[in-house]
């Protein structure tokens, strides 16, 4: 039994998914965060279901890649039920998607989510009337508080058991438009019925909407005889409604949606909205930037103060452990190397990575879920135009500070291929949490927070210039920003906790073992003295940058996971008292190199999947050249500023 969870961005799909499937999907208060399909097998009320969480989508048209994917996937798999999740406080805007889904001929149920927010806005919905108008069960929920979710799945089970009987009937448009749709539908049924798996009414509507993807399906199957018919009918539609052919039906659905909305909603008195007032300040053309900078600076200092405090204590502890180890084991035996490198790996994770990673992820979660990022996009639109993009592209970039992999995937929300390429390249250059760990744990810890902040600023300058150069190489007018600004939502502590845990688990389960394994590999290389070979091979590079030859191996391992470079640095140097062996200038040069050079393997993989292999290789080359250039620059001129 396969169930699809579909809804518009910010409707709470992922929250419902997580409530039943455990924490697997990342929710955020910004458009387009679920970029991959999350699938989970869940046992509910004695039955087993495959639950698929779709990316948030406004419609099933192919306006951008993310939306096109939803339509394709939904129709290529056999789903037994669609749960359409609707933000009750945005009912009118959400129903057009519901109307599109109905035409797919799959049993459906509506989850009317965020009922608490709707009543705060003074919106009262007659649920039974809505259910009757849509011909399907409607269940109210408040997913963030886990209310109604259980009943939703009890209902879901009933609907699935009823099977075909519960497929909702299509809701006809106004008579004049309906006649046109029926005429095309008839044509499709006559000529293509056996060959096309798509429901004919849905297909007819998409063809009338000029949807490239569905047009291409039919043209493969000798559909030009149909395209004349489509054109004639489109012209009729344009005449009837006086709107361009590409949006006339979309707007027709909106009119129908507003009609339904008018029938089931009573608007009472909204409670006073502090959020509106907040936006006057947060999005103010002067004050907004002041707040943005204040938030970023305090974000930065809190992470640093907290992390440095813990790192200091923990490192001394592990340092002592290392020393007592040499008393127990023979310093030249393979066991000593093995145990010591395991301890390095474990201590690196606990003492260096987690103290910064945990507060960093909590902070990022709060910023994402509170709905601040779309406001950042609003504020940064003019700036992004200067580098040839528009405000929406800032969202993948900001996500990049968490991890570059979802950031590159989030570029799917950009409709233009050219914007997507530039945004993806830029996102892969953003210092992710792993690189931030290096910046915090090394530069901020040993040189002071000012220098760490300077690296972030320097990185932003470099990224802006890269964007500028790329958009100069690919001159094309960017279509401009059209972005919904969601209401502020105070993220519940439960959600913050679970989401942070979900991301930290990723570090513990995936990255940490790699760190420990990497340490062991380095320990063994040292024991058999093979590290000298690698270091020798890399000596031209390390010599150019004025770094000791022993850091050579760490640069190689850094490609796997950027934190690895830092942990192995302490291991390769044989001490956590970095400043006894490296000068401050060398610390800076090393960090600059790590921050800019080659994205990690996971990012490379996602780049070649989202763009293509040649772009991935190009990014590797560019970042490598930039890294060498900048770190050399700091080597030569660093002493002037340090």
């Amino acid at each position, binding site marked *: 039994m396969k169930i699809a969870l579909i809804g518009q961005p910010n409707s709470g799909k992922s929250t419902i998914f997580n409530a039943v499937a455990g924490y697997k999907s990342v929710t955020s208060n910004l458009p387009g965060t679920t970029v991959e399909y999350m699938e989970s097998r869940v046992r509910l009320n004695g039955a087993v279901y495959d639950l698929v969480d779709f990316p948030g989508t406004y419609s099933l048209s192919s306006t951008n890649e993310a939306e096109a994917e939803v339509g394709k996937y939904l129709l290529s798999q056999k789903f037994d039920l669609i749960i359409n999740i609707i933000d009750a406080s945005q009912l*009118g805007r959400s129903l057009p998607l519901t109307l599109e889904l109905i035409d797919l001929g799959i049993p459906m149920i509506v989850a009317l989510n965020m009922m608490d927010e709707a009543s705060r806005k003074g919106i009262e919905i007659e649920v039974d009337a809505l259910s009757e108008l849509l011909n399907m069960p409607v269940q109210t929920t408040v997913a963030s508080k886990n209310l109604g979710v259980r009943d939703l799945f009890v209902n879901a089970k009933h609907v699935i058991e009823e099977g075909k009987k519960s497929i909702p009937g299509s809701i006809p448009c106004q008579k004049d438009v309906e006649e046109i749709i029926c005429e095309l539908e008839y044509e499709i049924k006559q000529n293509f019925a056996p060959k096309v798996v798509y429901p004919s009414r849905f297909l007819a509507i998409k063809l009338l909407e000029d949807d490239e993807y569905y047009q291409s399906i039919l043209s493969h199957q000798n559909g030009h005889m149909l395209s004349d018919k489509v054109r004639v009918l489109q012209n009729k539609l344009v005449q009837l409604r006086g709107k361009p052919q590409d*949006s006339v039906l979309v707007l027709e659905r909106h009119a129908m949606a507003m009609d339904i909305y008018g029938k089931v909603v009573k608007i009472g008195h909204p409670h006073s909205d502090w959020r509106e007032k907040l936006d006057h300040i947060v*999005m103010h*053309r002067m004050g907004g930037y002041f707040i943005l900078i204040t938030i970023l600076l305090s974000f930065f200092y809190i992470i640093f103060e907290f992390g440095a405090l813990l790192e200091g204590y923990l490192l001394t502890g592990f340092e002592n452990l290392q020393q007592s180890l040499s008393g127990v084991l023979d310093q030249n035996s393979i066991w000593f190397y093995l145990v010591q490198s395991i301890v390095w790996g474990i201590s690196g994770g606990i003492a260096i990575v987690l103290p910064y990673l945990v507060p960093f992820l909590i902070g990022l979660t709060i910023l994402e879920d509170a709905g601040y990022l779309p406001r950042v996009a*609003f504020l940064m639109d003019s700036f992004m135009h200067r580098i040839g993009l528009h405000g929406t592209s800032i969202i993948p970039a900001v996500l990049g500070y968490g991890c570059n992999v979802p950031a590159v995937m989030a570029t799917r929300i950009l409709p233009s291929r050219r914007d997507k390429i530039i945004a993806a390249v830029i996102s892969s250059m953003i210092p992710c949490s792993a690189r931030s760990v290096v910046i915090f744990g090394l530069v901020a810890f040993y040189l002071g927070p000012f220098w760490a902040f300077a690296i972030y600023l320097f990185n932003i300058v470099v990224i802006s210039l890269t964007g500028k150069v790329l958009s100069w190489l690919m001159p094309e007018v960017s279509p*401009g920003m059209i*972005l*919904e600004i969601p209401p502020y939502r105070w993220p519940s502590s439960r959600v913050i906790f679970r989401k942070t845990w979900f991301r930290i688990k990723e570090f513990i389960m995936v990255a940490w073992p790699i760190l420990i394994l990497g340490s062991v590999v380095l320990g063994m290389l040292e024991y058999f003295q093979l590290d000298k070979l690698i270091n020798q091979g890399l000596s031209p590079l390390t010599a150019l940058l004025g770094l000791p030859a022993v850091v050579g191996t760490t640069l190689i391992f850094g490609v796997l996971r950027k934190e690895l470079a830092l942990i192995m640095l302490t291991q390769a140097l044989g001490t956590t008292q970095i400043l006894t062996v490296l000068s401050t200038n060398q610390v800076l040069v090393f960090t600059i190199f790590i921050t800019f050079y080659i994205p990690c393997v996971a990012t490379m993989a996602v780049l070649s999947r989202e763009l293509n292999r040649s772009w991935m290789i190009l990014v590797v080359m560019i970042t490598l050249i930039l890294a060498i250039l900048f770190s050399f620059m700091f080597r030569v001129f660093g002493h002037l500023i340090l």
Partner: protein
Amino acid sequence: MKSLLDVSTQKSVKIVGISGGKGARRSLAQLGIGIGSVVKIKRNAPFAGPLLIENHGSSIAVGRGVAAKIMVEDI
């Protein structure tokens, strides 16, 4: 004919035409904005970033380039 850019803050206007690419037109339509829609300008600061418009209770940021292509009339 004037564009959305020429409308001052807090005024509501009716959209009479959207020129330019169909990508923008469709993205707007999905948010319920098209010919005939009435939108309220919540923010329009000349030379200073995107416009903020309100449509059926939701706020939408629209870049100045897009806004220039949205033709409106007073109501």
